[in-house]
């Protein structure tokens, strides 16, 4: 009761072990080393053993889906919180990558291990070129354009009846076995996750963040903003296209549903829930959201309502996300002190 009468505030202090392990002294003892390594190891080992502990084929499929959404969420987080471009075009990347992989496989007979990297690179080129004209724009415009492209491509494919029209491209080759199917995408998620984490602390990452925070200052330093935005969009869209190419080989089919809004919305929800601007958070968010949405499959379209509401609640009440919250708990003491 007294807490209500007097004003209190929460005081936060870094744990001693966090302060020690911030510097080179971390190498002095196993305790500090394990404090640093443990969260990363949990993530890596956890993801690597996931396919082994999944009870059925069905849940292994779910893990593959989770990884695709994780890649998309990672790409959204990177673009939105490190470059300042809000992209609602996850479906655009997925569809582009998917169709390119499907065509390379069915028309030219290339094996999946070749089509996926090719689709990643060419898809990213394609997306970047299409998005290039609107890169100098600020604000909501990039978001709207990226939202419109997948819708436009859907209608164009429908109207012109190209690329298989409404039926899609059938008969795409699948992976050799299911272990390969699982580990290809898991390794890719880990690779991109740690790659992007490394990228944003390099010099180029510094420029990216500067573009986000103050583009005029970047321009005043004689650096082309559009050039760096182009690079960032290329990186982000390559992640999306990789996911799309993988998806095509997973389901042995490429169709208009690859431009569906799910691929644009779910990654954003995952990012918000996991913790925006942390890069690991979105992956975590995907691992929470996608299985939930699988469990809710019985409810039909009600599950979309559920995750729209979850997203809303997180945006309004807990905009920091799960990861930032747990990071704080991991690194800091909290206690109430009287004001």
């Amino acid at each position, binding site marked *: 009761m007294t807490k209500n009468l007097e004003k209190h505030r929460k005081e936060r202090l870094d744990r001693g072990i966090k302060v020690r392990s911030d510097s080179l002294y971390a190498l002095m003892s196993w305790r500090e080393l394990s404090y640093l390594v443990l969260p990363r190891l949990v993530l890596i080992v956890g993801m690597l053993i996931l396919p082994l502990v999944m009870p059925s084929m069905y849940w292994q499929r779910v893990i593959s889906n989770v990884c695709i959404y994780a890649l998309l969420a990672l790409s959204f987080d990177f673009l939105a919180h490190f470059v300042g471009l809000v992209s609602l075009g996850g479906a655009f990347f997925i569809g582009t990558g998917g169709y390119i992989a499907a065509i390379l496989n069915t028309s030219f007979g290339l094996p999946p291990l070749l089509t996926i990297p090719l689709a990643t690179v060419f898809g990213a080129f394609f997306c970047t070129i299409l998005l290039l004209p609107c890169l*100098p*724009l600020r604000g909501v415009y990039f978001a709207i*354009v990226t939202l*419109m492209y997948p819708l436009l491509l859907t*209608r164009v494919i429908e109207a012109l009846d190209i690329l298989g029209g409404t039926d899609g491209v059938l008969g795409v080759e699948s992976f050799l076995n299911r272990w390969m199917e699982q580990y290809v995408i898991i390794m890719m998620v880990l690779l991109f996750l740690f790659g992007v984490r490394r990228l944003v602390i390099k010099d180029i990452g510094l420029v990216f963040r500067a573009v986000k925070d103050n583009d005029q200052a970047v321009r005043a330093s004689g650096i082309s903003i559009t050039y760096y935005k182009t690079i960032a969009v290329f990186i982000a869209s390559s992640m999306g296209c990789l996911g799309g190419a993988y998806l095509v080989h997973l389901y042995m089919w490429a169709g208009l549903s690859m431009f569906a809004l799910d691929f644009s*919305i779910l990654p954003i929800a995952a990012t918000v829930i996991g913790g925006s601007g942390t890069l690991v958070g979105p992956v975590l968010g995907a691992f929470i959201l996608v299985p939930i949405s699988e469990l809710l499959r019985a409810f*039909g379209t009600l599950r979309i309502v559920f995750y*729209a509401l979850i997203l809303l609640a997180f945006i309004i009440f807990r905009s920091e996300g799960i990861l930032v919250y747990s990071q704080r708990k991991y690194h800091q003491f909290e206690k109430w002190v009287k004001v």
Partner: protein
Amino acid sequence: MQILIYGTINSVALALYSLGFAMVYGVSRLPNFAHGALYVVSGFITWTLLNSLGLNYAVSIILAMIATGIIGALIYQFVLIRVRGMEISEIMASYAIGLAILEGLRWGGFKGMTYTLPAFIEGSTEIAGVPVDYQRLLVVGIGAAVVALLWLFTHYTRIGLALRGMAQDERAAMMLGIDSDLMAVAAMGFGSMLAALAAILLLPLGNIVVEAGYNVLILAIAVCIVGGLGSWMGAVIAAFLIGFAQILTVVYLGAHYQMVVALLAIILTLILKPSGLFGRQKELEERV
């Protein structure tokens, strides 16, 4: 002649779709991605009042408009006001609301061919040899009236002037004693009512379907972007441009391309002249 008549009707319909969106964006710089959902909701409210409660058509229309206005105001007051100014969160929050409403309706069984509103006046007439039904003529008439009334409202009433003041310069408006939050709520309410009005006028021409929500949203965005976000007159002119372009493509290319026109218009405008045809005042802010 046919192109002229149906182009006009289509254009007025587009203008009705987008006025609410333009109003909300103009006043509070909030891209209201729940606009399409409000449109559909008002259709279903009217249907429920009319068929389940058995009210008079005119009464249920008025009640539905008021109800939609209140829903819009509540959405703003309790949700969107908290994320105001954060562009990403604004888009995502309003989109999430729209998605929740639309998919909730779909789950609630509001789908299929069974939901139709009756036309205000049955029957049709001929203008210069082209058959046009009365409802479509009514759409044009009321649409023109709405645009005119809106102009009078924003130029001669206190609330209207306050809204316009907010749209031009929020800080100056606040210094002159205009409650900016209250006005934003009012704008959202009026915007939702305009969406409801559009729904009630246009839904008798077809079925009430949930998918319409997404299409209306896209069309409203297309019109507002081509006309310049935040410019009301621009929105009306852009509605005519896109409206005629759509009818022309339908006549010469096929119905498939109708949506392509709107989407292409958005993308081309953003690429060539991002501030739209009439959004000149903000040109400097938008390009880096």
